[in-house]
């Protein structure tokens, strides 16, 4: 499914240069749920961003479904990401001027899916927000926003789902419910998932856990 080969990344220049990732090698099988754990500043979000093609690596390669992300142009990468990946952010990041339903429809429309509305409605229903589908993000609670974000991320039936601390902005109870929903949907769809978390209990729910420390896999 995914192959990460000797990926390196640093920020800054000269004496202030910080090596965030020091040569990561990783393979992920289809359907696998992988937890990336580590302390704050260990490089987990950086690794996730490189795997999702959100940032550029200094060295190394990332292969997904036989395609090397480094070799794709910006537009090709955008299209590839739209077709093959879903992302759930810690701060939800819904489009503020679109309703809950429209936020879920948007990726499907971008791919010109003729069944966009049907799929979106189904997903909104699945996350238990049919009665809130026409509300704007500003009218939804944190937990509701994150559920919409999950529905959006899975709307295009992505090969791989990246989740960056998805419960980080939620209270314990809501966070637990949201994560249960996420894992349930991932299981149902057989989607590969890479989950960044600092919560060891959450990490244990995944099929594999990888620890990052000072930019290296432990």
């Amino acid at each position, binding site marked *: 499914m995914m192959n990460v080969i000797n990926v390196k990344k640093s920020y800054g220049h000269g004496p202030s240069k910080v090596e965030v990732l020091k040569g990561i090698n990783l393979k992920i099988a289809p359907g696998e749920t992988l937890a990336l754990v580590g302390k*704050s*500043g260990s490089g987990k*979000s*950086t690794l*996730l*961003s490189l795997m*999702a093609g*959100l*940032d550029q690596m200094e060295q190394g390669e990332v292969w997904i479904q036989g395609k090397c992300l480094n070799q794709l142009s*910006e*537009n090709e990468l*955008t*299209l590839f*990401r*739209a077709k093959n990946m879903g*992302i759930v*952010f*810690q*701060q939800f*990041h819904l*489009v*503020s*001027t*679109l309703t809950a339903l*429209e936020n879920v*429809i*948007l*990726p499907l*429309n*971008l*791919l010109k899916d003729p069944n*966009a*509305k049907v799929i979106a409605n189904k997903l909104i229903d699945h996350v238990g927000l049919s009665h809130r589908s026409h509300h*704007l993000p500003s009218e939804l609670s*944190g937990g509701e926003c994150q559920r919409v974000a999950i529905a*959006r991320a899975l709307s295009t039936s992505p090969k791989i789902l990246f989740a*960056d*601390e998805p419960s*980080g*902005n939620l209270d314990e109870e809501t966070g637990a419910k949201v994560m249960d929903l996420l894992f349930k949907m991932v299981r149902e769809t057989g989607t590969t998932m890479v989950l*960044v978390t600092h919560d060891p209990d959450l990490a244990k729910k995944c099929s594999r856990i990888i620890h990052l420390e000072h930019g290296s896999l432990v």
Partner: protein
Amino acid sequence: MIFELFLIKEIKKFPFFFLLLLFTLLLGTLGLTGISVVSEQVKSKLEESARELLTSDLVVSARRDLLDDEKIALEKIVRKVPHQTYKVVDIYSMVRHEKSSQTRLTEVRSVEEGFPFYGKITLTKGEFKVDGLYISKDLAEIWGIAIGDDLKIGEKVFAVKGIVQNDSSQGLRGFSLAPRIYLPLRDVEETGLLRPGSTGSYARHFRVPGYLEKDFENLTTQLLNVLPDSAIKVTLPQESSEQSGRVIAYLTDFMSLAALIGLLLSLVGIFYLYQSHLVARLKDFCLINLLGLEKRHIIYGVILQFSIVFIFVVILQTLLIIPGYKLIYPMLSNALGLDLSSEVNLKSVLFQLPFLYGLGLAILVPLLFGLMRTSMGIQLKSAKMSMGHFRFYDFIPFVLLLWGFAVFLSHSFSIGSLFFLGLLLVFVLSTCLIKILQWILRKYALPRSLLFPNIETGVAIRNIVHSGHKLTLSFLALAMGATLISLILQLDHLIQKEFTLDERKPSLFIFDIQEDQMDSLDEFARGQKVKLEGVTPMIRARLEKVNGELFKRVEGKSNLRTREEEVETRMKNRGINLTYRKDLSPAETMVEGEPFPDEAPDGKRPAYLSIEKRYAGRLNLKLGDRLTFDIQGVEVEGIIRNFREVKWTSFYPNFFVNVEPGFIDDAPKTYLAVLPQGPKETKRYFQREAVGKFPNISFVDVEEIIGKLAASFDKSRRAIEVISALSLIVGLVILYGLSHDQVYRRYYDLALMKTLGFSSGSLRKQLLIEFGFLFVLAMGIGFFLGWLMAVIIGREVFKLGWSINWEMIFYPGLLLSILCLVTILISSWSAVRAKPRELLSDA
């Protein structure tokens, strides 16, 4: 503590915000302060040269010579003080250059020995003396006259003794009906030009050495008491300088209003900037409040910040205006014909400062109220911070101050209020339009899919529908800028249209036709195969009573008079020309009341009167009022039957008061007439021959006058355009800032859209659709409202007709649209390069 917290630390931490604030305020206030500096310099110079303008310490004048008893009364007063005196008579007369046989209208200044007491008449060669004919440089240049050439004036021929280079009594170089020539008074009397009813001014000038201003005021009062006729004026130097500067005063009033729009646009920008800044600082404010600083102290801190920025703006303005003025004052001096001082007087700027500061603070009042209404403790617990809402009545101080400032700048309650209402209309219509648009899109476009008509438009529509008032502010700024441009262009078009010669306007305007000459002139015209039109009698009179009460001369001068009050004073303190005419002239429209009855008057009732509407307004007259006129000692009473509107730019003989025929027909009179449009050669020949036969009759070349008026207006227009351009630049800067901020607020949205699959090109397209559509719409509404305001102002102030110049909408609109789109593209260029990486938790 507030000082350190809100000033030193804040400015250190947010230098860019304060710099932007300073720049915005500076740009918005520069136009106004620049205009006030120039206006003050001109006013100071005119005041300084007041005595030179008047040529004496005091002048008693009227449009007729003083009667014997008036002369005696005057003499009784002035003989009590040691003084010198001379008489000056100014009349219009045709002059014929014997060498070229050309004729033209001139202003004949007839003077006595001693002229001028103050000031100087500089010749191209030699020294001015009251010993013969001297002509102005303008006239010499028009005809190529040399010293020694003969000019026929009235019945007599004079040789030119000298050419006047400069006359310090002429004041501002602006529009003048005719070039000036100078003759000794005794010689003018021999020309036969001084006939009863001739258009002219008779003045007695006095020099009273050793008298102070207070003494002159006492003397004036004494003179006015013994010379009760309101047609007689007593003028001191200060009034003369005010009179001379009237045109410039009107021009600077209008320019100030144009600059006020620039200020308003910058205030919109400041509101927007401060709002964003306060929201960004809200968390810190909440923390400080939690730690013990009261909310009102936080507000004092914000006010202190703004005040310090304002002080810096004032300093920078001074640093810019002083050298800026020194750079342009030679050019200004030349254009105005005044020797302006190079030293800058900042008195008027200081006078404006409280208004500017007040307006700046007033625009922040709603935000400060919002801050007061914020529940700071609760905010700290929220994931997303938001300030308390402001209410519409929070804007009342700002609105009132803006209206007051508009009236102050225009020195006119009606013009200032009209202008203010126009701005309010732009604001209300723009806000309503945005709401209507959002409603239409919500109702008809939102229910459709995101792909309607394409995904970029779908997202753009939703952004428009769900965006807050910040979008309204951008829309408003652009609509106001477009309104201003359109107003200036359309008003210019309307005025230009009035001042073009068309077949409706006559080619010659003829006046000073004596009663006994009318038939001969008519016969002469028929002999020349031309027909005189609009033959109208003119009878000099004085308004004595209104509804039985003596009509009092208006006294008392104050620097705080509005333009309307100034005009009213002038109207009330002069004699009046009457005419009698049954029907309306082609330039008149009855607007209220009844026309004169068809049947001849039976002698049992007073005459009916038809009054020009604005004149009636100035004298507070209404239908049915009784007016009593004194026509050379004979009282004639009339009742107001109707009000008329007169198109003064028709160049047709028109009067403020028209008396029903049958009452004053036998009064001593002169006649006015016009020669209709025709071949130019016919006009020239007619004028040349008529001057030879009737030397006292005056002819005004209407085409030439229109050309002069148009040229004069052109200069004024350019000045207004400079200020409008400055206001527009302010508008564009604000627009760029607002749209840049709007686009950057979407930074995370844009980054998110990229992760979801939008390409950079697609994102740019979406931004262009959203902002481009709104901005083009704002311009559309701005251009329409500008045209509407031009029509209303043109109608109410200048009595113009209405029309629309589409080119002046299309081309500027197109240019502005392109500028707006470029602005959006520039703003979006870096924004669409937003890094999706920044959406992650550790970014």
